[in-house]
């Protein structure tokens, strides 16, 4: 099986996974107690009004019919109507998704950019002070509740030091192309706006990244320690290669490729945890929107958000697979 066939197969696997996800969330959203029509219309509405809305929403039909109708709409790009924002859910998602993509991507970059070097350092200086300190920090990172850390960061950097903004994404860049402020400001060559967007991102992205950072660090450390014991490391040293090449090129490429899978999975945790961070930092993102919709029993919004996040997760993991094949030729040439 060539690597291309392998990727194609992974791509095809996404379809049943997303179908399953849509069925699950569709059923779940409808079996939780509470009547969305009643919630939307408020306590003063008459029973007839509620019944009419239920009919309009198709809630009186059997579940299977509802589902097929919904999926039919989905394929035409119609996510249904939101009872809360009174707009098409697709429009809401378009508005809120970029903020979450931006937040989680930057958080992921933080986690990799800090987790990998710390993991390497910890492995190379195994059982020395540097190792102990990084490991304790990693443990704290995993254990700390995100929202609490987020509040502490706000207190320190925004309130006491006053060097970073407390909440929000800051003013939108003049041109909206992607909705990702960093990207939009760069595309418009507006570096001032880029800097402002970045300043707003640092605290929430860091707060969000800490768990993944610690996870990546621990994994890279363990993998590096294993790789450093291998024959090819000894062989590389015996050719007289400098230690930096042996560690950062020879061992790290091997150690990192096995850490990649976890990086893909931890993107899912980031999406899940994004809600807490988005709440604390008043970040107008999709996670925040999704949870609000859930509390309001805004069915179409809940299902829509879940499917979009599912797609995002699948795409990231597909990217990880591609990167994996790039880093490790054994995957590419496996027969």
């Amino acid at each position, binding site marked *: 099986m060539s690597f291309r066939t392998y990727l194609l197969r992974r791509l095809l696997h996404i379809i049943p996974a997303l179908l399953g996800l849509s069925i699950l969330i569709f059923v779940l959203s409808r079996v939780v107690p509470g009547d969305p029509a009643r919630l939307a219309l408020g306590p003063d509405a008459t029973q007839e009004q509620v019944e009419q809305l239920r009919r309009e929403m198709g809630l009186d039909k059997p579940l299977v019919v509802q589902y097929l109708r919904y999926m039919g709409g989905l394929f035409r790009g119609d996510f249904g109507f939101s009872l809360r924002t009174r707009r098409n859910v697709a429009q809401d998602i378009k508005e809120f998704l970029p903020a979450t993509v931006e937040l989680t991507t930057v958080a992921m970059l933080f986690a990799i950019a800090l987790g990998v070097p710390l993991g390497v350092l910890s492995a190379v200086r195994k059982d020395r002070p540097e190792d102990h300190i990084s490991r304790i920090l990693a443990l704290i990172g995993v254990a700390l509740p995100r929202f609490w850390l987020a509040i502490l960061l706000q207190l320190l950097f925004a309130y006491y030091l006053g060097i970073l903004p407390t909440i929000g994404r800051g003013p939108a860049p003049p041109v909206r192309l992607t909705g990702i402020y960093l990207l939009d400001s760069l595309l418009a060559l507006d570096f001032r706006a880029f800097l402002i967007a970045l300043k707003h991102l640092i605290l929430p992205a860091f707060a969000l990244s800490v768990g993944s950072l610690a996870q990546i660090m621990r994994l890279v450390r363990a993998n590096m320690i294993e790789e450093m014991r291998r024959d*090819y490391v000894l062989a590389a040293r015996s050719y007289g*290669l400098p230690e930096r090449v042996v560690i950062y090129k020879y061992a790290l490429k091997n150690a990192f490729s096995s850490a990649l899978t976890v990086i893909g999975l931890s993107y899912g945790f980031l999406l899940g945890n994004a809600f807490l961070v988005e709440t604390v930092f008043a970040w107008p993102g999709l996670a925040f929107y999704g949870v609000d919709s859930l509390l309001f029993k805004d069915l179409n919004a809940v299902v829509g958000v879940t499917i979009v996040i599912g797609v995002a997760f699948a795409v990231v993991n597909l990217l990880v697979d591609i990167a994996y094949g790039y880093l490790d030729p054994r995957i590419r040439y496996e027969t």
Partner: protein
Amino acid sequence: MQKEPLLEIRNLTIHFHTFEGRARVINGIDLVIGKGESVALVGETGCGKSITAKAILGLLPPNAEVVSGSILFQGQDLLQLKGEELRRIRGRHIAMIFQDPSTALNPVFTVGEQLMDVLVHCDDQGSVQRWRTRRPVAMLRQRCVDMLRLVRIPDPESMMGRYPSELSGGMRQRVLIALALLQRPELVLADELGTALDVSIQDQILQELKDLVRTQGMSVLYITHNLGVARMVSDRVYVMYAGEIVEVALTHALFRRQFHPYSQGLLAAVPRLIGSIGEGIEGRIPDYVSPPPACRFEPRCPYRMPVCCEVRPPLREVESGRWVACHLYPASGGDSS
């Protein structure tokens, strides 16, 4: 008779700090390799052969401790060298061919990149000089291709772009040889070369390496448990048992007659095509944490005498060019130089 020495190991003693205690793995060995000479270090698995090679390159594991001794290479004691000085010796003056071709190549880089790395990163002096003498990549690449051709790899150009996982065991072994010889070292340490391959390919590769080092004038230390290999490739043989050298002889002399009981047992253990399989030696290599007090072979020796567990037999010259560490053989005429 004796060639000018290139490498001289004197009284090397290495202990390992293990969970069970202090393991006295290398117990005062002497070993000389002359310029252009091929020497075999023979002994069963676990007798300390590989440790000796790693000690030469300064690549001992962290729990090893060099207790005493010296390793003189071109008049310089390798054991006194600091990290960076030692790194400049490795590969450029002394190189090692690793024993397992399936694990000693980095799986995620092409053959070409691994060869190029050695030239790019190892052939440097200081950074200033490197800048001044930086050679074009094409030239370095040509050197790699030439080296692959020298180790008889067919189509070396395309080999440069291949990954180790695409190669057969024999090809990987050739690549490892190319990596070791790339910087034209004076001394090559071949650790169990070809053991992981099937016998016909092993013979072929050994023969080729033997011819290659002869034409390049390199010295080689073959580390092997296989007496057949030693006979094929070496000029002189050191027989090692439990971290000690028990017999040294010219290869043809050793195969004519073995003096030390261990050497005799080792040769008798070789299976032959005609007749029964070899006899083998009773028992196993002793425990290094609490080895026998005097002669380490005494518990397994068919000729043991009371003196064998009281006095450690020194390595004595019993006839010209032959040293034996055994109480059975008194020194010949007293001249031991």
